[in-house]
């Protein structure tokens, strides 16, 4: 009986944590979608990739 009660509590906590996670990601996705609608005119920030190995070697030769 005692082990059954502990098992029941653990299962309840597990279900609660899973549901809370799903709820968190659900609300986050809605908020992200709303933000996208209002901030769609923003240009993405400039990004400079790391030069590749061969390009670096060529520059060093020069």
């Amino acid at each position, binding site marked *: 009986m005692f082990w059954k009660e502990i098992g029941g509590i653990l299962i309840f906590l597990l279900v609660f944590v899973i549901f*809370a996670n799903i709820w968190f990601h659900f*609300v986050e996705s809605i908020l992200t979608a709303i933000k996208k609608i209002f901030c769609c005119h923003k240009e993405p*920030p*400039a990004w*400079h*990739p*790391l*030069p590749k190995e061969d390009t*670096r070697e060529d520059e060093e030769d020069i």
Partner: protein
Amino acid sequence: MGFFGKLFKGPEIDMEKSDANAKKMRLLFNQVVENGDTYQLIFGYTEDVSWFNYGFVHGSKTKIGNLIVGWNEETKTIVVVPTVPDLSGCGDPVYYRRSEIMKAYRNKYPTDAFIIYPDKKAYIGINAYDWLEDEKLYVYVSQEKELAAFTEFFMNQYATK
């Protein structure tokens, strides 16, 4: 060294990886900053903590932004370049010239950070440590000497109070 000696010694720094990343940081920095070689570099990061309350689920979210921080003692300028933990690229640099900023100081609480206010509206808090183990979140680089040099520069030449 025995098993327990190794166990209590803590994590060891992979200097090969650290040196490779330091070179990548220099390449990226020099790519976007004019006369980049005149700047000394350290790795720093910003923390953006926001609180959320979605009904029965509430807590805090922390966004980490990796930065290559360069400083020039002659011109008393700090340049901040955003990057990513694997150093595959970087963004545009932001210049903080001492003559142009509103104030700069070192904060001790809640975290040890170098704070710069370019104007009244905005600020940047730069956190920096000797070495951070988590490669997924931070750039893997050992920088004890560089951090000491930056701290000395910031406190003695750059801070406004």
